[in-house]
């Protein structure tokens, strides 16, 4: 086994709270939304990492923290092992680029495709001598051929899929090494989603881009990603190679997500274990945030936030069920003695 490749971009123990005011006026209380807590993600060159979770799980916040659009309250973003610079200097934007969910909103609609693509080229002084050639080249890379057809069009003249391709081309203009795609296909028609996913896969394989793919669709994450990270209520609950994660989910929340996802191959209607809705992030539950819904919740789950336990190499789950009894005892004075039985049986059945 070779040593794990050094990540291009890494987020370490990222934590972000957003301040909100409960009411207006003199006695307004300041509250904080615990959007992301202690999340670590590694993006490697030539790999796609997917972040999966329900709305409000903190997926987009992680994406925006890594793109340095917002600042973490604590934790670090490391580019090539060095802390990312303060501010959002062009040197950082040149390495890390973002693609947004809605290509209708993210492209400037009063300018032609050419203008949208020339802007980053000029601002970052990429290909100053041959801007036209660079634009054509970008369009070819996102499979908009022949480029001449598209350069003079306005965004509204393109279909949703073509528009998202232009948005990706714009992100590629500065020759970044990391692409952060926040729900890039969820606004697109079903029949053209796969085309955009395949484009991302090609960019990974041919150009060795490190890609973060944020999605709520676990099936597409399994299809595209090398590693899948599952988030729940602002915390990372499980991380594993994508097929391993869907075939042997170790965290009860991941199991719930998988049982709820549409699956035409399923013979029997699924049994949902852990009904209900994600908790309020202003007053999150103590301990593991999933414990109020978890069918296997033990005492320790209510008291202590579970650290990440290794289930197998490359596969971690933040769940006390995967702690060795000694670890559980050491950290909890032997309070918890609940068996690990049901979960293990459950994973074997799959």
């Amino acid at each position, binding site marked *: 086994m070779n040593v794990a490749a050094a990540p291009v971009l890494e987020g370490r123990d990222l934590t972000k709270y957003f301040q909100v005011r409960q009411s207006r006026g003199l006695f307004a209380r300041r509250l904080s939304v615990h959007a992301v807590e202690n999340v670590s993600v590694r993006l490697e060159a030539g790999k796609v990492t997917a972040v999966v979770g*329900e*709305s409000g799980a903190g997926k987009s916040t992680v994406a925006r923290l890594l793109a340095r659009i917002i600042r973490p309250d604590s934790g670090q973003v490391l580019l090539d092992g060095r802390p990312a610079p303060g501010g959002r200097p062009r040197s950082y934007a040149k390495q890390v680029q973002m693609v947004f969910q809605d290509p209708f909103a993210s492209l400037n609609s009063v300018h032609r495709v050419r203008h949208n693509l020339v802007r980053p080229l000029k601002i970052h002084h990429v290909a100053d001598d041959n801007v036209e050639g660079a634009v054509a080249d970008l369009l070819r890379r996102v499979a908009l051929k022949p480029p001449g057809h598209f350069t003079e069009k306005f965004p509204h003249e393109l*279909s*949703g*899929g*073509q528009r998202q391709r232009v948005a990706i081309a714009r992100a590629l203009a500065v020759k970044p090494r990391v692409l952060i795609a926040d729900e890039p296909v969820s606004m697109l*028609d*079903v*029949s*053209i*989603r*796969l*085309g955009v996913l*395949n484009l991302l*896969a090609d960019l990974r394989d041919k150009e060795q881009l490190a890609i973060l793919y944020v999605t*709520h669709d*676990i*099936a*597409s994450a*399994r*299809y595209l990603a090398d590693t899948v990270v599952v988030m729940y209520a602002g915390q990372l609950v499980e991380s594993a190679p*994508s*097929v391993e994660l*869907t*075939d042997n989910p170790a965290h009860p929340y991941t199991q*719930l*997500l*998988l*049982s*709820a*996802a*549409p*699956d*035409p*191959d*399923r013979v029997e*209607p*699924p049994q*949902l274990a*852990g*009904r209900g*809705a994600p908790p309020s992030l202003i007053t999150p539950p103590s301990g593991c945030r999933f414990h109020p819904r978890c069918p296997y919740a033990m005492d320790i789950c209510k008291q202590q936030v579970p650290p990440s336990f290794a289930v197998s190499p490359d596969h971690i789950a933040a769940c006390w069920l995967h702690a060795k009894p000694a670890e559980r005892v050491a950290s909890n004075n032997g309070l918890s003695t609940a068996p690990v039985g049901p979960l293990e049986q459950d994973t074997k059945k799959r």
Partner: protein
Amino acid sequence: MLGLAGESGSGKTTLALAAMRLLRAPALITSGEVLFHSRPIGGDGPKGTVDLLAAGLDDLREVRWSEIAVVLQSALNSLNPVTTIGAQFDDLLRVHRPGMPGSERWSRAGELLDMVGMNADRLRSYPHELSGGMRQRAMIAMALALEPQIMILDEPTTALDVVTQREILEELMGLRDRLGFAALFITHDLSLLVELADEIAVMYAGRLMERAPAASLFHAPRLPYTHGLLNCFPPMHGKRARMEGIPGSPPDLRDLPSGCAFHPRCPWALEKCKQAIPRLEPISGSGREVACWLHHDDAKVPAELAKADPRTEPRQRVPTLIQVSKK
């Protein structure tokens, strides 16, 4: 339950709204008929068959909501934001059940919320105080209030998270088994329909293109478009393999391609497909219909579209017991 699948802009919602005559100008229904074969479950709807397109407004009023209820995608836009959920139930029952006293209306509303897994206390809530899933449940409860024979569900769970979606679908299926209404379920998510519906109809560019039992459609599609659409949903099991989806993009409805609207994206398009529009016709001896020239005359059917129908026993459904929330 009949599922209606298709991409955005394929006319799924327009079809449903047209059936209820809910389309607004400049939309105009130029031809066709919508036959409602009434078999009242409860209440006193019309007996016999009514053509909803020819019916007068009074007749239509008897049918809408009481016999055919609609649940739309955006519950936030369908609920009145300035009154409580309870008041909206009260309005509805006061108009449609004139004899019902106020206290009974209130308890009936509570019962309905109970049926969809909500606490009756929620009657005092305003729509903005409810989560997306709760609002959609309230909408379903309201649609059920007059015991309709048919529920038209237009993307009822599209805006919701998967877990909430699954819970609401379970409740819907349970209610359907218990109350015995027929349902039309409209969605773009074909993979979901395969699990839910008994029969699926696929639309493309404003036309019905294929209609078949759910399992047959999934395992042995006959239409190139359905075949391609099924290829757009990555599977949750097995080895990962590259999938190609459907090349090209959906057509512009103002400028449809000649002949079959799908022919520019179809890998098996014939010369005939560019010239004439295929009609939805039954395939001999299979109880399914398809609009495709490949299945007409002596055209050679590609192997991908000629898989044997799966042997299907009608899927056994265990009626889900309705969860009754206790105080």
